[in-house]
């Protein structure tokens, strides 16, 4: 057998490409159904877990899928915002905890999720290093987001601005990283979390600037409105960063009740409170309350239908690959018949041809198994939080 192993090694060295292609196709055929099955299972588990941990969700009327995906999994959406007043009204209900959330901003492409302080307790989030944000302008990074951004406590980053050349829009705001969250295995790992005030500061709804009455540069004051408000030039820019020095000067114009939120997470004391508030808000409108667990179940039903189709295609691919491999094996027997005859003419024992084929296919199947295991492990590692696939 030693000679057969030696000859197989030499044969593979002389013809590595067909052997690798064969091993890779077998590995993919074996791994793909397993990976898709595992992913679907993990995806379902993670999605359901997250949804179950949020009993109710209040938001604008419209797609309940968009609302749930935006508020729970931080996907972009085109839903209009709801007012802070909704959160305050719901928070005033007995037996109901309302947590406002705002997800419309990004920094270096990473979503900025601005939340009320209670959010961290509701999600069981704690800082692995540094601390949770205490001040406007501070943020805490999810574990994966911190790796992606390469930042730690004390680090700085600017919010993304969609209006780079429009001076009438708010400039990017510099955020200070106050800490890094411990990994949670959920969507919170992927985002930047900050206080709601910070989101409104990014949107320009609260800002700081020098006191106009204390003196302006020539040309900055354009006039005074009949209401008494000063009309300032576009060159008069608000502060682009928040520090202990300018923090007291941060202020808002207009009504606080109209400040925007993406949604309000609701944690009712019991099922009765949940049912009552759900019925009342949904009957009155224009806002809606949805049950994320139900929404996700509907979503998963569609996803699982597609998954069943993908499974069927995977098995078909596997069967085709197996048939091809069997054809290749049969062709190999024919192509290497002369080699077996040569070895027989040199006195190799009976069945040397079959032993050579067995060694070759042993090597191919061994390599394919290792590749399949590596692919499976890689897929499992890459998809530790499958909600990222959303």
């Amino acid at each position, binding site marked *: 057998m030693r000679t057969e192993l030696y000859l197989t090694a030499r044969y593979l060295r002389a013809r590595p490409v067909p052997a690798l292609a064969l091993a890779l196709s077998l590995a993919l055929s074996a791994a793909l159904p397993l990976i898709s099955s595992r992913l679907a299972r993990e995806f379902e588990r993670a999605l359901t877990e997250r949804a179950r941990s949020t009993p109710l969700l209040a938001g604008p009327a419209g797609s309940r899928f968009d609302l749930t995906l935006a508020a729970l999994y931080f996907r972009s959406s085109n839903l209009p915002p709801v007012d802070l007043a909704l959160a305050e009204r719901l928070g005033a209900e007995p037996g109901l905890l309302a947590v406002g959330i705002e997800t419309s901003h990004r920094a270096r492409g990473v979503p900025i999720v601005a939340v009320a302080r209670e959010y961290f307790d509701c999600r069981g989030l704690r800082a692995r290093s540094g601390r949770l944000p205490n001040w406007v302008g501070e943020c805490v990074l999810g574990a994966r987001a911190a790796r992606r951004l390469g930042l730690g406590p004390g680090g700085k980053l600017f919010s993304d601005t969609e209006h780079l050349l429009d001076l009438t829009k708010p400039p990017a705001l510099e955020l200070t990283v106050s800490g890094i969250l411990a990994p949670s295995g959920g969507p919170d790992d992927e985002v930047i979390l900050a206080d709601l005030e910070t989101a409104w500061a990014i949107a320009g709804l609260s800002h700081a600037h020098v006191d106009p009455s204390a003196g302006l540069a020539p040309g900055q004051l354009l006039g005074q409105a009949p209401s008494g408000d000063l009309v300032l030039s576009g060159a008069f820019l608000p502060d682009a960063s928040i520090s202990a020095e300018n923090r007291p000067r941060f202020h808002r114009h207009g009504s606080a009740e109209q400040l925007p939120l993406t949604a309000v997470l609701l944690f009712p004391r019991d099922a009765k409170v949940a049912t009552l508030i759900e019925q009342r808000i949904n009957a009155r409108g224009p806002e809606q309350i949805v049950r994320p667990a139900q929404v996700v179940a509907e979503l998963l039903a569609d996803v699982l239908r597609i998954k069943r189709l993908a499974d069927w295609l995977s098995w078909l691919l596997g069967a085709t690959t197996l048939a091809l491999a069997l054809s290749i094996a049969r062709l190999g027997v024919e192509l290497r018949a002369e080699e077996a005859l*040569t070895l027989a003419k*040199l*006195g190799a024992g009976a069945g040397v041809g079959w032993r050579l084929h067995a060694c070759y296919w042993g090597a191919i199947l061994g390599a394919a198994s290792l590749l399949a295991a590596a692919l499976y492990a890689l897929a499992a590692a890459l998809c530790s939080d499958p909600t990222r696939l959303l």
Partner: protein
Amino acid sequence: MSAPASADPALVSARGVELHQGAGRFVLEVPELELGAGDLVGLEGPSGTGKSTLLAALCGLLVPESGELSVLGLDLRRARTAERQGLLRERLSVLFQDLILLDYLGVSENALLPARLAGPQRLAAARRELPDWLERLGLSARASAPPRRLSGGERQRAALVRALLDPRPLVLLDEPTSSLDPVLAERALEALLGCCAARGAALLLVSHDPRILGRLPARLATRPLGPGRARLERSHP
């Protein structure tokens, strides 16, 4: 009929042997054949008269239909397959007309293959001898080249190195110099005869080349007897 008498017991002994090829479409009669240690015998004859058939029978690859055929003490008519394979693997040096080199091995690896099949000790000894043989047959620079990159003559010399590298008592060669120019053929023959003399091995060499056959002290020939039938006879230069 026998090759020149030898004092040693016969390495090859055949009496009244009939060899059938192609389900009896061709029959070679071997009335008598004896080869002793150190015998150097040429075998000639027209194409298709059974020279390669005789070599195949002496290698144990073709079992005689009748008569007695013994090679190195093994009765080839009665021997089991494994015994015949053992004889071929460990005690015979053979060069087949079609050379049968493995295309994914280099010259050196092809040359070492019989010794590898014979066991680790024989392989180790063959490895030591290999550079000298490659040098003698002008293949040192082509040691790692696969057969597809060799000329016809180089392939033939590679097969000759493979046949001679591992010392064995009986050497059977089918047209070992047919693709070589006269100079190389002479060089190969010198190496071959020197090797047989040094080892005391018996040689049966098939050739159509009178110069090659003329260098061997004894000669046999296959003579056609009619369609599909031939006989092995003693031949005189």
